[in-house]
């Protein structure tokens, strides 16, 4: 508990996390409102449509996660941190937990905010949260944000440089994974096992209504069921986090 408090003080005593949170919420809500507000009158769409901005929010929260640790390396406070708490794994786990928790809250606020905003703009039964899949599509963002933030922190520990770590998490999740689909023949098969695609599948997959047909973002194609998708994404995060902890322990600070 002490270490969680330590990391909470560290995180919220600088400006950048607040800025990241604000930008993440504004972009997530803004894009969703923009899309929902500009669809033609007669166009039928579902909950997935209100969540299109979430992806942007997620990207920015990953930047927050990477920054939370790479700034420690950049300004050498990591040495002060390890001096105060020689058990590096505990310290880094506490940091990951705090960042993930913050990300989860932001994800929850962003997802329900975006949904609520969509509902205000265009109220109707098509945006009602009826099924478990509907709830998963909105509330699930919280879990994905939390895990993605943990991945970003871990990558930050491994890479240590702000520019490198943020570039890697953004390029990988936003560009590299989608581009795998362009590989002839095997691209699609590989893509269904790519972690961020699987994470999207947890949110939007397995819905009874065809989200893509209804104008939402293209439905992710993954071999796993939604909840197995979550487990897969969590396992991916756990592997990277473990690699980060082992590396940090061995390395000279």
């Amino acid at each position: 508990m002490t270490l969680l408090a330590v990391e909470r003080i560290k995180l919220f005593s600088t400006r950048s996390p607040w800025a990241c949170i604000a930008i993440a919420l504004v972009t997530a809500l803004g894009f969703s409102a923009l899309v929902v507000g500009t669809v033609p009158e007669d166009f039928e769409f579902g909950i997935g449509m209100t969540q299109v901005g979430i992806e942007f929010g997620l990207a920015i929260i990953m930047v927050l996660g990477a920054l939370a640790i790479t700034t420690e390396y950049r300004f050498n406070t990591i040495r002060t941190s390890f001096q105060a708490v020689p058990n590096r794994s505990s310290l880094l786990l506490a940091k990951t937990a705090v960042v993930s928790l913050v990300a989860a809250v932001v994800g929850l606020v962003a997802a329900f905010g975006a949904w609520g905003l969509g509902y205000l703009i265009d109220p109707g039964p098509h945006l009602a949260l009826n099924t478990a899949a509907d709830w998963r599509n909105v509330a699930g963002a919280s879990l994905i944000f939390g895990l993605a933030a943990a991945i970003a922190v871990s990558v930050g520990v491994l890479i240590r440089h702000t520019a490198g770590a943020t570039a890697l998490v953004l390029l990988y999740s936003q560009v590299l994974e989608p581009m795998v689909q362009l590989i002839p023949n095997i691209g699609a098969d590989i893509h269904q096992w790519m972690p961020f695609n699987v994470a999207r599948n947890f949110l939007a997959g397995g819905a009874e209504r065809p989200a893509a047909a209804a104008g939402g973002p293209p439905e992710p194609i993954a071999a796993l069921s939604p909840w197995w998708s979550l487990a897969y994404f969590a396992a991916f995060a756990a592997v990277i986090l473990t690699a980060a902890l082992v590396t940090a322990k061995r390395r000279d600070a």
Partner: protein
Amino acid sequence: MIEAVGLTKQYGNTMAVKDLSFSVEPGKVTGFLGPNGAGKSTTMRMILGLDNPTAGDVRIKGKHYRDLHHPLRTVGALLEARWVHPNRSARSHLRWMAKSNKLPASRVDEVLDIVGLTAVANKNAGGFSLGMSQRLGIAAALLGDPEVLLFDEPVNGLDPEGILWIRNFMHRLADEGRTVFVSSHLLSEMALTASELVVIGKGELIAQSSTEEFVARASENTVKVRSPRIGPLRDELLRLGVSARDEGEGLLVSGLDSEKIGEVAFEIGVPLHELSPQQGSLEQAFMQITGDAVEYHTGLDDAAKQPAAN
């Protein structure tokens, strides 16, 4: 209090620290002296468990740093004043450190008061001058009221007032019975600050002794000699097994006092223009001892090893 045994650190092919053994006692300011790149900071980082030694061992009060419970309460360190987040306030910086070792929040205000930063406590550390950063670093080191304090080049870049403040401060800490270990490449500063010296060069121990002894030993052993026929004198001295090297137009002789050198010159019939024992400053002692590898393999080396051995 601090005990290093055979401490070694290798980065790739470079030996940063080689088989370094020394001990630092409480109640004194011990200077850690060596030219830039001698391995002082690396040693400090190994003491604090930040870098893993390639070989050897360093303990504080008989324990490895990583095994200390709430280490800030035992060891306070200032390695680099600028190691703070520029957009975090001085108070927040100390607050998380205090929290991590379960120190009361009131302690943060106490140490800020001790170093005189209370007025700027809520300002971002990025806007601090070097002197202020240094004070913040000292506040952080004092946070846990530790028995052992490490300072790495604490007076670097400070104005005379700041230097005086730090010097007096370290004396006060030692007078309170704490172990104070302070590194510097500024020898004149060490002469004023430290009563004990651990001297290293190229990652190896050169001497561990009191500052007085260190200076005295070096000055006793150096005599400057000038002569119009310096060649024969040099040859004769070398034949007697005395170390002598050219310095300007004369010779710098170590290991033989001026009386003996005068007698040697008389015996071989060499006139002398100058025969002056060199006044020992720490700089000279230091340059002489760390100057080159040959120098410290003379008689000084054996003498240097004796105090280190016990």
